[in-house]
């Protein structure tokens, strides 16, 4: 299976991509001490091309969040290596090369929307020469112009997640790591945010790694879909989604879309 996955990676490298945004080689991640050791990821290798939007699918417990967190330097790597824009994850984190969006909006409830977006500019001893964006502009970009002074409890779940995205964008990251960011939202809000995320991706050219539980979401957003299988977590499939951009929600009713989701569903059942 692993061999297949590796072979699959070759033809999907786009010709214009000169380097990888994220390069994972023979990654092993194990949790727990001796005796009670649990292997979350085993021999995972994958190349994320710069500027790509890669969605990560897999049965729960397959380690897709763990992989994302390892890229973000939130999890200790047991074996193998991760390179983010050619550096170890710790360096990339300190250099503000990536931003992370969690399933919960994780806003500070005592701060207004605009002050939450500005948080990354206040903390960490980051290089002041690094490019940053205006929090006001970022809020406008996610469609929250006029709600700058609102406290998180005055915003809906979808709006709070928009604030979280604006906060992630304020450091102008080259990579956006998103861990089921719309998982807790209702379907209508989720659809809307999906469309807007695609628009943001196309406008900013940011590389996006997006973990999801939903096959349609993975296909709709993904330029590539990375599927992991569980116990232990390894790469099952890395495939390009051949749907034209810009995509509208209606693309989900096309035969091609349904064909891809059906294929992924069949693969998921094998995991």
């Amino acid at each position, binding site marked *: 299976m692993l061999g297949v996955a590796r072979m699959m990676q070759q033809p999907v490298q786009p010709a214009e991509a000169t380097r990888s945004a994220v390069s994972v080689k023979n990654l092993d991640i194990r949790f727990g001490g001796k005796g009670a050791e649990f292997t979350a990821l085993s021999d995972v290798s994958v190349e994320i091309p710069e500027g790509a939007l890669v969605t990560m699918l897999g049965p729960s417990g397959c380690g897709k969040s763990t992989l994302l967190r390892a890229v973000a*330097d939130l999890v200790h790597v047991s074996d193998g290596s991760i390179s983010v824009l050619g550096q170890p994850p710790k360096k990339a984190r300190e250099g503000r090369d990536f931003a*992370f969006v969690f399933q919960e909006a*994780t806003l*500070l*409830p*005592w701060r207004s929307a605009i002050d939450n977006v500005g948080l990354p500019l*206040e903390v960490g001893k*980051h290089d002041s020469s690094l490019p940053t964006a205006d929090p006001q502009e970022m809020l406008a970009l996610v469609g929250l112009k006029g709600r700058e002074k609102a*406290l998180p*409890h005055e915003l809906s779940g979808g709006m709070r997640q928009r604030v979280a995205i604006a906060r992630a964008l304020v450091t102008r990251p080259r990579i956006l790591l998103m861990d089921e960011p719309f998982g807790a939202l209702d379907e209508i809000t989720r659809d809307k945010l999906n469309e807007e995320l695609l628009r943001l991706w196309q406008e900013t050219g940011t590389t996006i790694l997006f973990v999801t539980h939903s096959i349609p979401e993975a296909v709709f957003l993904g330029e590539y879909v990375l599927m992991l299988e569980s116990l232990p977590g390894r790469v099952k499939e890395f495939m390009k989604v051949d749907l034209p951009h810009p995509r509208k929600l209606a693309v989900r009713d096309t035969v091609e879309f349904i064909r891809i989701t059906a294929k992924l569903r069949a693969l998921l059942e094998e995991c």
Partner: protein
Amino acid sequence: MTDFTHGSKQGVAMPLEKRNGVAEAVMGFFASHYPAILAVTGCIALWQFVVWFFAVPTFMAPSPVEVFHAFGENGAILWANLLPTLLEAFLGFIFGNLIAILLAVWFVYSSTAEKAFYPIAVIVKSIPIIALAPILVLIFGNGIAPKIIIAGLICFFPTLVNMVQGLKAASPAMLDLMRVLSASNAEVFWKVRLPASLPFLFAALKIAATSSVMGAIVAEWIGSSYGLGALIIEATYNFRSPLLYATVVIAAGLAVALFFVVSFIESRVIRWKPDAQH
């Protein structure tokens, strides 16, 4: 009611909105609290009736009217003894809570410290405060110090427990976010942990506000010559029951006043809803 509103409109030359505001505030307070107001009034009336009907002697239990008179007759004494108690309760509140907060911060950052000193805090807490008072008077003499210490001790434990919980209340995802942002420990403390702990802290401070008065009074029972506690003892031994009751009312009033001061500060400081972050 209509007469009252109408009368105030006629009689007082205030801006129209403000007059309505005051009238509405009074009406609103009565409208929302009338069950409590009626119940309290009823209890006092019942008390007056029982004392009168059974001809209870004043030294045993004075009537509300007698207690009311006691306020007038002993105004100077009550005031003179209120101030030391207020000072002791206030200083005890400040020191007790300050030490509890600092200890909680230490506990959160050092699990060794928590393991070492938490049991001691529990042991100190389990000694009845009234049993501790004579010991402290023996050590620190009869001055203001043992009273402040006892008032402080009584505040200390609830604040310690709540503050430790509050400082640990920040969600793991929030701490992950701060790590992704390469925030320092100090930044995590000032920008996340401390603000997140404030609702927990104020819950404890409201308890401490009332119990600090209790601590000061209990301390004054042990061989003190001033303060509301001393006045309670003196009035009891001299069968001056109306004065005793008046002192008790003053002590309760002091505790309630401190409680409302803390509640007011809380409403100014905490304008967010803690559970809305998910």
